């Protein structure tokens, strides 16, 4: 069974103290939170957008939103889950804007061109596997990808993912199942070779 970092509602006293100070407007305390969480947020944002520049923008926007809304944060939930929620929402906004923009563009996205005509893919390198995995991920809907990423890479429980994505636990489960089925179809040829 897969075991990744699991976020619980438990926070260290020192983390709670920093969050409380930041919530009162202490910039230095907020800076600590930024330094502590930037890498993880970038990883999540990149996996959501598959674009380096966009991921950096999403991280910055997400932190600014966090700063403005920190007073609303309740200590009973995990701070990382709360940050992830903001990051996912910010990334979703970005992806929606991108989708609208792409309606007027003719160029195919990079991840689609990789998989075009690849029913029996020849896998020569690790780079190729990465590219195809990325393509498979980006073929998922934004909601499916978000749910799967929060499960697979971030180790959130289904209940937490449901809260982050503001859906019921049942709907969240079904979203993950759908995402897993689609991913397996795309990734199966890579396993057999």
């Amino acid at each position, binding site marked *: 069974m897969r075991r990744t970092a699991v976020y619980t509602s438990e926070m260290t006293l020192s983390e709670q103290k920093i969050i409380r100070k930041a919530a*009162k407007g202490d*910039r230095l305390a907020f800076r600590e939170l930024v*330094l502590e969480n930037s*890498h993880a947020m970038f990883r999540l944002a990149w*996996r959501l957008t598959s674009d380096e520049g966009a991921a950096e923008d999403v991280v910055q926007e997400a932190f600014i939103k966090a700063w403005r809304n920190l007073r609303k944060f309740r200590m009973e939930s995990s701070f990382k889950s709360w940050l992830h929620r903001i990051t996912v929402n910010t990334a979703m906004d970005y992806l929606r804007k991108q989708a609208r923009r792409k309606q007027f563009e003719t160029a195919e996205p990079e991840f689609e061109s990789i998989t075009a005509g690849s029913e029996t893919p020849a896998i020569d390198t690790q780079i190729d596997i990465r590219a195809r995995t990325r393509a498979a991920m980006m073929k998922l809907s934004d909601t499916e990808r978000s749910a799967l990423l929060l499960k697979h*890479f971030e180790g959130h429980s289904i209940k937490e993912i449901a809260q982050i994505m503001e859906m019921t636990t049942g709907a969240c489960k079904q979203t993950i199942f759908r995402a897993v089925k689609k991913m397996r179809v795309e990734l199966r040829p890579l*396993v057999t070779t």
Partner: protein
Amino acid sequence: MRKITDDDLTLLFYGEHDDPALATTVAESRELSERFDSLSAELRLADNFVPPHREDDYGADVWRRISPRLGDDRAETSGRLKSWLATFSQPRFSLAGALSISLVAMLAFMLGRNGGPESIGTSMAPVNQNAIALAGIDSSRLLTHSVSGHLEQVDLMLTQFVNSTETSSRDSGFATDMLVANRLYRQAAASQGNHKLAAFLADLEPLLIELAYQAQSGSPATRERMQLEVRDGMLFRVRVMNKRLDKPQISV
């Protein structure tokens, strides 16, 4: 016994299945084991979805970018007022410091009122225009000269900060003085329409705020990170900006 679906196996893979006996059931069945192994192998390939590497100081970089955008809103207002009152009531805010700040304030006020678009039509403008004209001083040159002196002080302070191992309240007091002066110069530059200089001084401000207050509350780890940030970023920018500023000789 009900049929074990791929969804059950997915939940098992992610450690989320409600039935604690499912793992044993799967292990005891060859068919289920093969299905589970196949699902595991396929899902493990998702681990190849690897983000690009970010350097250790990425967090500091994010902070540098967002801190000017955080603004001074929120609960800071009352806290800042208290902090300002505390600053002025502390002994470390010496008479000399207060006098120099007063001079900076007066100078910045005159510069701000003189030459900027906002000054047109104000009752104070002609007086200060005359005062500066009488002194034979070009207000724009006077501003850049003054800011240049200010940046030299900031450069000195930052150099000391990156090379020292601990912060004293004296350093903090010096940073507070620099912060006060910086704000006044920023306002003066903005009033004169020198937006580039005003923007640079605005960028400098969050760092001065941190230097002014980190002495009391910062951990050694915070201090180390700030030193790295200053060394790799703002110190260089201060020196470049200072070089760019014209330094005319002012005749008195």
